[in-house]
Each structure stands twice: as structure tokens, then as C-alpha cells.
């Protein structure tokens, strides 16, 4: 559901990003990667492993200032890392509240915990939870302050199919309700075809944008046949990025 003509909530224009490890050859991780995410849009960044997708997210979030280019919108983003990155010594509730700036930390979060099915776990420590539940806590932390855009780095990886589908459903419902945008990095093409409004295909290192593919069919009408046709078309066009 892209809103045409609206001001983008995220803008990325990375001219180049080099890694210069001491005592080793410099590596160019990203080159000429530019895209925007509009309000309410779900965008998936797809590319081979080690292609510089996570590097792009780190730059976008301001975690790595050593690059050439411009990014904007990080201040209205809620981030979910690939590993949940929860504080094991703090309760689930405390972890989620750390997603809020201190002046709003006492805010009522009952609705959020209920929506994500975390109410019973508020006082547990993260280690008592499964990986899928820990990811939900990380998601709750990202949503706590009502961001305009949710940035997800491989959020469903190493979950079993049922847990991944459930979490995916939660994310999609939440952002649809709140009119939030999503930028999601993944190497799972089927997953991306299932949820995205737009796919961004990224090449091997140095990561550069090779295709910007809108998926027009509304999410609820996407069936297996459509997903397979879409995947086959993409794979025919970009055989080095998308395997059949």
C-alpha cells in the first residue's frame, strides 16, 4: 500500500562504503545504493548473504558514520536486530521500556503487551523465553515509542515455520493498523514476496541496487500460485540473486 507522492519516511543514498581492516586489503561493501521508503510502505531489501545489507542498515541507523552519502529518517525508526539483543539481566517489561526515551518510560504499555501476546511474560527474564518470544520482545521494544518506520534485520531467521509465520503476521497486522512503514532485510525471497509492497534487489559486494520491483497485488489476495509465478519471473530476470 504505497502512498504515491507522499514524503518518504526513510531516505538512503550511499555513494560508497569501504571497510579498511588493518593488515588486509580494503573491501568496498556498498556502492551507489539509493532508495526511499514511503509512508505505510513495506519494503524488503533482498540480496545474497554477505552482500552488505546489514552494513546498509547500520549506516542508515547512524551506527556507522564512516561512509560517503546521505541518509535520513533514522530518528523515527524502531530497530529489530537479527539477534534479539535483549538485556538478560532485566525483565521483559524493563527491556521493552528501554525503547522509550526516559521522560516517557512510565507510559502505559498494556495494549502493546497484549497485542504481541506478551502480557503473561512481562516479569520474566528473557532467558526463560524461546527465541520466537524473545524476537517478539525485541519487536515490542521497537514499537514502544510508536515509530513511523520499523527497520528489521532478518527478523524471522532461525525460527521454525510456524513461529516465523506467526511473527510475520503480527508485524504485518501491526504496521497496517498503525500506518507504519517497514524496511526489512532478508535473504528469504518467499517471505519477502509474501509481505512486501516493493522488493529491492541488491547485488553481491559491493552492494548496489539492481532492481526495484513493486508488488501490486494486495497482501490478502496473494496465493501460492501468484507467489510462485512472481518468484519464477524474478528468478528468470535475476538468476544470480534469486535461485529457482
Amino acid at each position: 500500500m504505497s502512498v504515491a507522492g507522499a514524503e518518504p519516511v526513510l531516505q538512503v543514498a550511499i555513494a560508497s562504503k569501504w571497510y579498511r581492516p588493518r593488515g588486509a586489503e580494503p573491501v568496498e561493501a556498498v556502492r551507489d545504493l539509493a532508495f526511499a521508503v514511503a509512508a505505510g510502505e513495506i519494503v524488503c531489501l533482498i540480496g545474497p548473504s554477505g552482500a552488505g545489507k546489514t552494513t546498509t542498515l547500520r549506516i542508515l541507523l547512524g551506527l556507522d558514520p564512516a561512509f560517503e552519502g546521505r541518509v535520513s529518517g533514522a530518528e523515527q525508526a524502531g530497530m529489530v536486530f537479527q539477534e534479539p539483543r535483549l538485556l538478560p539481566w532485566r525483565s521483559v517489561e524493563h527491556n521493552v521500556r528501554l525503547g522509550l526515551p526516559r521522560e516517557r518510560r512510565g507510559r502505559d504499555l498494556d495494549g502493546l503487551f497484549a497485542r504481541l501476546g506478551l502480557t503473561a511474560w512481562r516479569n520474566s527474564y528473557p532467558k526463560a523465553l524461546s527465541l520466537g518470544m524473545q524476537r517478539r520482545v525485541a519487536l515490542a521494544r521497537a514499537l514502544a515509542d510508536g515509530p513511523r518506520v520499523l527497520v528489521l534485520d532478518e527478523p524471522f531467521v532461525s525460527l521454525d515455520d510456524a513461529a516465523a509465520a506467526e511473527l510475520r503476521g503480527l508485524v504485518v497486522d501491526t504496521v497496517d493498523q498503525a500506518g507504519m512503514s517497514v524496511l526489512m532485510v532478508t535473504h528469504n525471497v518467499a517471505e519477502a514476496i509474501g509481505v512486501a509492497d516493493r522488493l529491492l534487489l541488491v547485488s553481491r559486494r559491493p552492494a548496489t541496487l539492481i532492481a526495484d520491483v513493486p508488488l501490486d497485488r494486495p497482501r490478502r489476495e496473494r496465493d501460492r500460485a501468484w507467489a510462485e509465478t512472481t518468484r519464477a519471473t524474478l528468478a528468470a530476470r535475476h538468476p544470480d540473486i534469486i535461485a529457482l
Partner: protein
Amino acid sequence: MGALTRLASLAVLIGAWQLAALEAGSRLLPAPMAVLRFIVQEAERGDLGHNVGMTLLRVAISFTVAMSLGVVLGVALGRSKAADLSLDTPLLVLLNTPALVITVLAYVWVGLTETAAILAVVLNKLPNVAVIVREGARNLDPGLDEMARAYRLDRRSWARDILIPQLQPYMVTAARSGLSLAWKIVLVVELLGRPDGVGFAINYYFVQSTDVAAIIGYSLVFMAVMIGIDVLLLQRLEAYVRRWR
């Protein structure tokens, strides 16, 4: 079962002591009852309480100062390469200077005062704490720091929720090893230049009359106090700090 084994081993130890004392039949190896009698007499005179109290006070003050400064120093060393490089050598020197030398120099330069005594203990213990905490500050999880930056966590929350919990196990280790170190050094410091305390008393009974019952009596009482503090305070603190595991 565990408590029983402990009690049995204690009984064997005391039995062996009793036998050895009987065999020797000398006041240089007093029997357990003789030591106990001394402890009771010394307590009735009030000397025991005063001396143990003074030593405990010195341990408490120097322990607190050394822990606070040591933690701050250790975090600085672990987080800043420049601080580590510039302070590593002085730290190494201090770590390897005998406690006796530090104590004598403190008395010579500061005078035979309470301040010098505390200073000597702090200087002996501080590098230990700093080195242990430095290890903790070097092993901070970079993923959590990145999370903190992505969420623009304020400094106070970062220190309270991310830094200190990761340092806690190191701080408890430093506290436990540091406490036993501190009280041993305090005794030396008292022996060399204080008019009271357990170290003073032991030296007094040694020089005055080689009263071994007194020496063993004082050391047993103080040991019991320190083990009590470790079990009642520090071990519970450790269990509390590790509760989330």
C-alpha cells in the same frame, strides 16, 4: 551431607590440634581450650572488641575507597586505549610492589597517622580491583552497545542497565578477593604503625611474652568475622547478581 562433612573435617582438625598440644606440652603450642580461655578473658577486658572493631573499621573504609576508585579506574582502562596504555606501567609497578614497602613508604611520607594507614591499604588493593574490572570493561557486549545507540539510550540508563550489570560479576569477584586481601594488609599496617587493632595486638603479645594462645586467639576471632562477612554478605550479593542466569 555437605554440612556433615564440613563438621567432621573441623572436628578432625581440632582433635589433631589437641593431640599435638598434649604431645608438645609447651605454652608455645597451646591447646584449643587455652586459646578459648584467652579469647573469653580478652573479651571480658574489652580489648578484643576494641581491637577487632578498629581493624574492621579500617578494612571497611579502605575497602570502600579502593573498590570505588578501582571500578572507575578499571572502566576507564577497559574503555579507553589511551588510558590503558598510559596507566598500564604504573599499575604493573604498583601491583608488584610488596605490601610492606608501600606501607613503610606511606608512613614515612604521610606520617604515622590513620590517613597513612588507610592510604597504604588502598594503594595495595586498588590495582587488583582495577585489573579485574578492566577485564570486564573489555568484554562488554558490542551488540548491546549498538542497540543502545540505535535506541539513543541516555547515559544514565546506559550505565545502569547495560554497563553495570555486565561489570557486576567482575565487581563481586574483585570484592571477594579484595576483602581477604584488604584485611591481611590491614594487619601488617597496624603492626607497623598503629596503637590498636588486631595487627597491633598480635605484635604486642608476640614481643611482650610470645603468648601464642593470644596470637592464635586473635587470628581465629578475626578470621571468623571475615568469613562471616563473606558468607552473609558477599556470597548473597553474588547470588543476587546472578539471579537472572
